[in-house]
C-alpha cells in the first residue's frame, strides 16, 4: 500500500475498470499459471502489504497455485516465485532462499490467493500479516495435483505429438480418479491466441515455459473455474527448438549489421542444420515495439534484425522469420504480418 492516498484510490479505480474489461472478454489462463511467472525465480522489492484475508482457504485451490517465498518477516521483503515441485512450501522456499527450513513459516490467504512463506518471527505471525496458517490438508491436496501432473507429463513425453482427443481423455480419466469433480478439459483459448507467435499445429501439450524441458501442471489448472487447459501447437520439442534458435540467432545478429540478403542467407544456414527451411516477411517494427529487445539498438541503426521466428502453419518443416528494418512498410494492424506475407 502506498502512503499517498491518491495512489491507492487510483489503483482501486484501475482495478475496477480492469475487472469490468476482463468481464467483457473470454476467460484466459490465470496469470500465475503462465510460463513466464514461474520461471522467474526473481528477487524483488515489494512495497505493498497484504490486505485482510478474505479468501476461503481451500487446500486444493492453494495446491494449484505457486508458492511465494519472502526473504523477510513481512510482505515488504524481497520475493521469489520458485516452481511448486511438490515439496512442502517451506522446503521449496528453503531451497530458493538458501536458508534452513526451520527458520521459515508458511501462511496462506490474502489478496493474492497463494501460499506465502516468510522468515519466522514468533507466534501469531500469519494473523499479524492478515493471513492464516497453512491448512493441514494442504499436503494431501498437493500430492493429488502432483499425481495429475505425472500422468499428463508422462503421456506427453511418451510421444512426439499427442492428439488432442487422447490428451483430453487421459486428463478427464485422471481428474475423475483423483476425485476432482466437475472439472472440464479444454484446448486453451490462449493457445489459439498465441498460435500466431508459436506457430500452427495439432499436438496437445501441457502449457510450459517455451525454453523449459518440462511442462508444468500449474499453468494448466484453473481452480476458480474448474478447467484444465491444454495447449495446441507444434510438437513441444519442435517449439522448444525453434524458440531456442530464435533467441540464439537474435543475440548473434543483434551486434552486427548485415544486408537483408546476408541475414537471410545466415538464417537459412542456421535452420538447415536442423533440416528446417525458412520463409521471410520484412516490415518496419510496429510503433512502440522493440524497446528493450536485444535487436533494438541495431534496428535503430537501420540494420535488418530478426523480430520473431515461428513454425509455419501447415508445414512443420518450415519456419516463418519476421525480419524488421526501418524504412520498410509498417505491418497492417500494427501486428505480425499475415501468413501470406511470408515467402
Amino acid at each position: 500500500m502506498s502512503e499517498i492516498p491518491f495512489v491507492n484510490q487510483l489503483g482501486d479505480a484501475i482495478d475496477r475498470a480492469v475487472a469490468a474489461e476482463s468481464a467483457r472478454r473470454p476467460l484466459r489462463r490465470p496469470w500465475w499459471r503462465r510460463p513466464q511467472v514461474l520461471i522467474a525465480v526473481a528477487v524483488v522489492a515489494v512495497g505493498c502489504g497484504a490486505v485482510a484475508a478474505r479468501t476461503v482457504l481451500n487446500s486444493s485451490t492453494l495446491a494449484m497455485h505457486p508458492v511465494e517465498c519472502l526473504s523477510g518477516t513481512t510482505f515488504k521483503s524481497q520475493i521469489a516465485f520458485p516452481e511448486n515441485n511438490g515439496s512442502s512450501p517451506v522446503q521449496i522456499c528453503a531451497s530458493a532462499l538458501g536458508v534452513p527450513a526451520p527458520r521459515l513459516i508458511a501462511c496462506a490467504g490474502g489478496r493474492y490467493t497463494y501460499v506465502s512463506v516468510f522468515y519466522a518471527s514468533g507466534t501469531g505471525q500469519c494473523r499479524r500479516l492478515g493471513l492464516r496458517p497453512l491448512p493441514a490438508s494442504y499436503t494431501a491436496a498437493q500430492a493429488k495435483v502432483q499425481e495429475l501432473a505425472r500422468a499428463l507429463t508422462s503421456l506427453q513425453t511418451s510421444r512426439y505429438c499427442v492428439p488432442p482427443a487422447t490428451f483430453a481423455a487421459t486428463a478427464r480419466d485422471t481428474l475423475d480418479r483423483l476425485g476432482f469433480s466437475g472439472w472440464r478439459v479444454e484446448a486453451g483459448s490462449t493457445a489459439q491466441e498465441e498460435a500466431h507467435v508459436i506457430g500452427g499445429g495439432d499436438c496437445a501439450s501441457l502449457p510450459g515455459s517455451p525454453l523449459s524441458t518440462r511442462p508444468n501442471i500449474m499453468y494448466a489448472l484453473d481452480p476458480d473455474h474448474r478447467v484444465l487447459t491444454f495447449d495446441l501447437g507444434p510438437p513441444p520439442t519442435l517449439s522448444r527448438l525453434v524458440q531456442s534458435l530464435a533467441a540464439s540467432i537474435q543475440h548473434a545478429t543483434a551486434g552486427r549489421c548485415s544486408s537483408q540478403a546476408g541475414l537471410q542467407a545466415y538464417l537459412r544456414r542456421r535452420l538447415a542444420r536442423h533440416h528446417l527451411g525458412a520463409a521471410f516477411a520484412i516490415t518496419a517494427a510496429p510503433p512502440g515495439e522493440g524497446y528493450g529487445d536485444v535487436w533494438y539498438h541495431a534496428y535503430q541503426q537501420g540494420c535488418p534484425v530478426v523480430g520473431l521466428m515461428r513454425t509455419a502453419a501447415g508445414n512443420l518443416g518450415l519456419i516463418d522469420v519476421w525480419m524488421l528494418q526501418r524504412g520498410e512498410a509498417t505491418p497492417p494492424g500494427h501486428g505480425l504480418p499475415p501468413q501470406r506475407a511470408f515467402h
Partner: protein
Amino acid sequence: MDVGNDAALIVASRDDPRAFRRLYDRHADALLTYFYRRVLDPEVAADLLAETFAVAFAKRHRYRDRGTPGAAWLYGIARKELAHWFRHQQVERRALTKLGVQVPPLDQQSVERMEAAVESDGHRAALAAALEQISAGERDAVRLRVVSELSYGQIAERLRCSEAAARTRVCRGLARLSELMEATG
C-alpha cells in the same frame, strides 16, 4: 530493481488483473514522483500517472519478455506521456477513457505527501540550481504557472506576450528543467 519479476508481472497481467495491480503497487509511487519532479504540478502528475498505467494495460499484450527490465518498458510509456504533455500542455486521456477509469480527485494529503517525497530526495536544491540555468523569460513563465498557478491568459498579460507565447515559454522552461534535472539524476 528486479528484472524478471516486473517482466513476469506484465506478461501475467494479460490474463489476471491481480498481476497488473501488483505491477501498479510496485511502481506507482516512484512514477508519481517522477512526473511531479518534471511537471511541478500535482494534478498533472496524477493524470500522467493514471494515463501511463492505462496505456500500459492496453499495451501489455505487446510487451515481450526477453530478459530486459519490465520497469524500462513502463518508464518508456511514462516518457512518451510526459513528452506529449510538454508538447501539448495537455494530458493524453485516450487510454483512460477507453478503459473507463474514473480518476479519483487529488486530495490535499496526497499533495503534501508527494511534496514530501520529492523534498526527501534532495529535489528542491536541484530544482533551484536548474531554475538558474534556464532563460529568465522561461523561468518567469514557469514560476507564474507553477508557483502562482496563473492561467496562460494571465501569464501572457503579465509577461506582455501572446497566450501562445506564454504557453510555449512555460512548456520550454519545464522541458529544459526536466532535462537539467535528469542530467543531475
